[in-house]
């Protein structure tokens, strides 16, 4: 049940994101003051319109595109950076590894959302910088998990055997260690994905991150506060889209963990 709900919700979000330009005839940025604040069900606007008369459905679909793009890019960047650093830290047990793990500790001594927000305020707003900020705040989880896994994989007999056969370091890592660490990377990635999406929305909601008029769910919610008394739909739909996407990805991640790596704690 959980598995199918997760797959269904994730697929729905993915299809909305990929098919946004074809699923709606409206341009998410085109304003039409004659049509402003129409409730859901208005002719031509099944989800209603916002204060500038922009079609809410179009903005929601393009919002999905943005959310999944940011979440996806961040997951890829953090998995590669954190994964490589974790691999190195697990293999080289000298000072570089100690320094790296101290950095991880320092970073973990700060709430994730606050860290990402602070970095974003410093490096500047916009799409590229929000991905950068989330990545800079998020890579530590991979580094820690991967290092732990490498330390344990290194003690296995097959690694000793491969080393006894005179295999080179790079080959050892690629052929024997990486395949055994990969499941945890996939599980961490799937669990991180939804928290990146929610964090991006929260940061954009607070006024950093993606700026209006770009249709990001977080900044749409932020704008909706000014029209709270007259237009409930502006707050209801972007939030529901965000919650359902996060729910789907979470369920999928739980299922992946149960299947691939039941003992992993993130």
């Amino acid at each position, binding site marked *: 049940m959980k598995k199918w709900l997760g797959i269904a919700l994730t697929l729905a979000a993915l299809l909305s994101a990929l098919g946004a330009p074809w699923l709606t005839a409206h341009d998410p940025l085109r304003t039409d003051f004659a049509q402003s604040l129409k409730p859901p069900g208005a002719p031509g606007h099944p989800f209603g319109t916002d204060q500038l008369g922009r079609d809410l459905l179009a903005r929601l679909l393009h919002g999905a595109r943005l959310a999944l793009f940011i979440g996806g890019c961040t997951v890829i960047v953090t998995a590669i950076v954190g994964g490589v650093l974790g691999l190195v830290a697990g293999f080289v047990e000298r000072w570089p590894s100690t320094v790296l793990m101290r950095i991880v500790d320092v970073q973990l001594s700060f*709430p*994730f959302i606050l860290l990402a*927000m602070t970095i974003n305020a410093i490096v500047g707003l916009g799409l590229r910088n929000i991905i950068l900020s989330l990545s800079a705040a998020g890579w530590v989880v991979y580094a820690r998990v991967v290092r732990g896994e490498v330390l344990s994989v290194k003690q296995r007999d097959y690694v000793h055997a491969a080393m006894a056969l005179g295999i080179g370091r790079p080959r050892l890592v690629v052929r024997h260690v990486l395949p055994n660490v990969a499941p945890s990377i996939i599980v961490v990635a799937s669990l991180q994905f939804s928290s990146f999406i929610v964090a991006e929305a929260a940061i954009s909601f*607070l006024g950093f991150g993606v700026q209006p008029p770009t249709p990001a769910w977080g900044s749409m*919610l932020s704008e909706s506060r000014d029209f*709270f008394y007259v237009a*409930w739909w502006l*707050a209801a739909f972007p939030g529901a889209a965000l*919650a359902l996407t996060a729910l789907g990805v979470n369920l999928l991640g739980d299922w992946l963990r149960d299947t691939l790596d039941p003992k992993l704690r993130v």
Partner: protein
Amino acid sequence: MRAYVASRLAQTALVVFLSLSAVFFLVRLSGDPVLLFMPMDIQAKDVNEFRQRLGFNDPLPVQYARFVGGAMRGDFGESLRYRRDALGLVLERLPPTLLLAGTSLLLTVVVAVPLGVVSAVRRDSVLDHVGTISTVLGQATPGFWLGLLLIYFFSVQLRWLPTGGIGGLAHLVMPSIVLAAFYSARIARLTRSAVLEVLGEDYILTARAKGLGENRVIGKHALRNSAIPIVTLAGLEAGQILGGAVITETIFAWPGLGRLTVQALLNRDFPVVLAAVFFISLMYTLINLAVDLLYGWLDPRVRLP
């Protein structure tokens, strides 16, 4: 034990110092905030004088040394926006945040632990399924959206509760529910699985076999033994609640540290940002230390080095 606490406190100091330094350099590299505070028609000479007075014209190492020296004495400089001592500003905003975080943590434990225990004991009952569904939903619902929904229903439609600000108990209700919702969901899920795991142990069978009442089996043997992961998570959450408070405080106009931090970041009011970073990382690491010390008390098998 004493040596352990001392070394952990030293580590705390190091961590706080390192995070402050990192933020200091990032902030300085991102440009100077002076122009933001100047009227549009200002002369370059005046800007320069202002920079000179705030010390932004000195070489970076000099600025850093001055910052470290000041921070040691608890002096983070003057807020660029409020023209007041940054540390004093942060200290003033600390009690509301502690009140909000404390209420939420209490609410979390009071709701989530019993829910998790009952779900585990009455496994696969209707209550367990309702509990599971609500925790899964609670975990996926972003706090700021939940906050908006609550304001819509309880303030705008029903007019029962104030939309924001600080005051009586009524002001505390919605912010603490929002902050507690997400964390309750996680703690309830973890409590359920931790209790389920313990219920399969031999000593539970023994306790039942010797005729102990079910309440005592659960309360004394099961819960106590499943406490470690619950306390760990609650401790980690206590730190994350500080992060969640940033968003909740902004929605409900709660005059706490989180809202101050957001405003300071938006205004590039860096002395306040640094003072806030100092307090947040200090509290966060101290909470983690407290959690580690709790282990030894909860489970005598855990030997602190």
